[in-house]
């Protein structure tokens, strides 16, 4: 596997807040095609971390490498072309007055000729299943639809990496499902690398690797199975423990022996109905 993002000893401090650093000596790398979830408390530095990857914030110390480019003032626009970012508030990232204008915004910025733009806008909208809404204004879309438009705007730029900065946190359950399904499908088709910053444990469970942040430090790095098996510690970090984990600890209290590794809801059902047979 090739490494697509490489962070070395990153630290960052907000100028207005003279408390401790927002990021403290963070190093990790992400492989191409991975889905990495970054979880942590409010103010743990996870959004700051995401913003250093595409140069929205320049770290005080350390090196950021995306693809073969080292992040500096010269390369920052190339890197932003490679890294698309979906933000939290669906309204505050909708620049265009209609769906298609918004998708075209990024393309316009790159100076792409109009004929190609039209084609790329349409195919991007098709990929997120929003073609029929092309002429709509944002006020007439649901939160989930707006986020899908934001994703289309990024897909149209043909990035290698997509960062979801709490992109589903303001959506209703239906919208959340739509957005995640869209990302899963795109990831498969376009061979994207996905970084999702999230509070939502189900979104984190989609990842194949989870980074846990606390007060600007990276405290855990592992697969969902290992991370979720920490149970109580996750609750202490302000993260809700997934339902199967809760069920497991409840069962444990009643003296039922349960497997240690993380299970999805389906896996849990599977285990439950076969468990008494195995005894």
């Amino acid at each position, binding site marked *: 596997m090739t490494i697509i993002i490489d962070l070395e000893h990153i630290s960052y401090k907000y100028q207005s807040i003279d408390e401790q650093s927002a990021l403290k000596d963070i190093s990790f790398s992400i492989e191409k095609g991975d889905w990495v979830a970054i979880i942590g408390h409010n103010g743990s530095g996870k959004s700051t971390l995401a*913003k250093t990857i*595409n140069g*929205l914030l320049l770290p005080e110390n350390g090196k950021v490498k995306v693809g073969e480019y080292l992040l500096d003032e010269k390369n920052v*626009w190339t890197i*932003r*072309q490679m890294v*698309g*970012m979906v*933000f939290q*508030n669906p*309204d*505050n*990232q*909708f*620049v*265009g*007055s*209609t769906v*298609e*204008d918004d998708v*075209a*915004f*990024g*393309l*316009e*910025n*790159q*100076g*792409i*000729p*109009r004929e190609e*733009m*039209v084609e790329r*806008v349409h195919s991007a909208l098709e990929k997120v299943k929003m073609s029929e809404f092309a002429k709509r*204004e*944002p*006020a007439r879309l649901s939160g989930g639809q707006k986020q899908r438009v934001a994703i289309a*705007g*990024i897909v149209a*730029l043909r990035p290698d990496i997509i960062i979801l900065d709490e992109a589903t946190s303001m959506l209703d359950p239906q919208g959340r499902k739509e957005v995640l399904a869209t990302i899963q499908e795109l990831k498969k088709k376009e061979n994207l690398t996905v970084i999702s910053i999230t509070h939502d444990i189900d979104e984190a469970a989609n990842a194949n690797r989870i980074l846990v942040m606390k007060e600007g430090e990276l405290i855990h790095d592992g697969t969902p199975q290992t991370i979720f098996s920490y149970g109580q510690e996750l609750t202490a970090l302000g993260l809700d423990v997934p339902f199967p984990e809760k069920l497991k600890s409840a069962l444990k209290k009643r003296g039922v022996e349960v497997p240690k590794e993380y299970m999805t809801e389906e896996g849990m059902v599977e285990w439950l109905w076969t468990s008494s047979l195995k005894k």
Partner: protein
Amino acid sequence: MMNKLIFGRFIPGGSFIHKMDPRCKLLVSFYFIGIIFLANNWQSYLFMFLFTIACIALSKVNLDFFIKGVRPLLWLILFTVALQILFTRGGNVFFEWGIISITQYGVVNGAFIFCRFVLIIFMSTLLTLTTPPLDLSDAIEYLLRPLKVFHFPVHEVSLMLSIALRFVPTLMDETERIMNAQRARGVDFGEGNLIQKMKAVVPILIPLFVSSFNRAEELATAMEARGYQGGEGRTKYRVLYWHKSDTGAILVFVVVTFALILLRT
């Protein structure tokens, strides 16, 4: 409260007026404001009224929208008309008290100014009702282009305009939400005298300002993340098409101008 302000509220449709090039519509709207000052008697004002009504009929937009458009500006109009009536002198004097006098000329002038206001509002409402705001800002960008010579930031102004327009519904929703939140805390917006009413606006405006600043910052971040680096080297997704009918519309306005010159005294 907010819904009464229909300025900038586009009503979709397929009429001839809707299909006109926004540049043409913008030009002739401004031209209309210019030539309305040519009218100076009943005949010419009647002619302009009929012409405006014809334009409205052509747009197939309900006349109610236009009358609603006048309403928020009614006080301003009445104030101006009152000034004209009270301070213009000449002709038969109906009433006199100190510097205030109601004269024949004053009343006639007041009536003309009222007509002028209403016609201008009707025409500009027609422009905003039949033109999507973004088309309008495209038109403005296009028409301002010559000013680039003087280092006028044409692209920035046009982007500012289109973003402002795009956020109108968002901010309206927000205002509604804040008002409801304040109502739930016992604020009464409809009651009291003018000063009390103005005071009641403060708890709406402050949260609205705070949230707008936050929105602006987030939007700026999102735009930068999508590679926005100013107008240099940007291409345009939206294009405007000038049809033969647009040239036709301009010719109609030329004819109207001549008719006005003939009708005025």
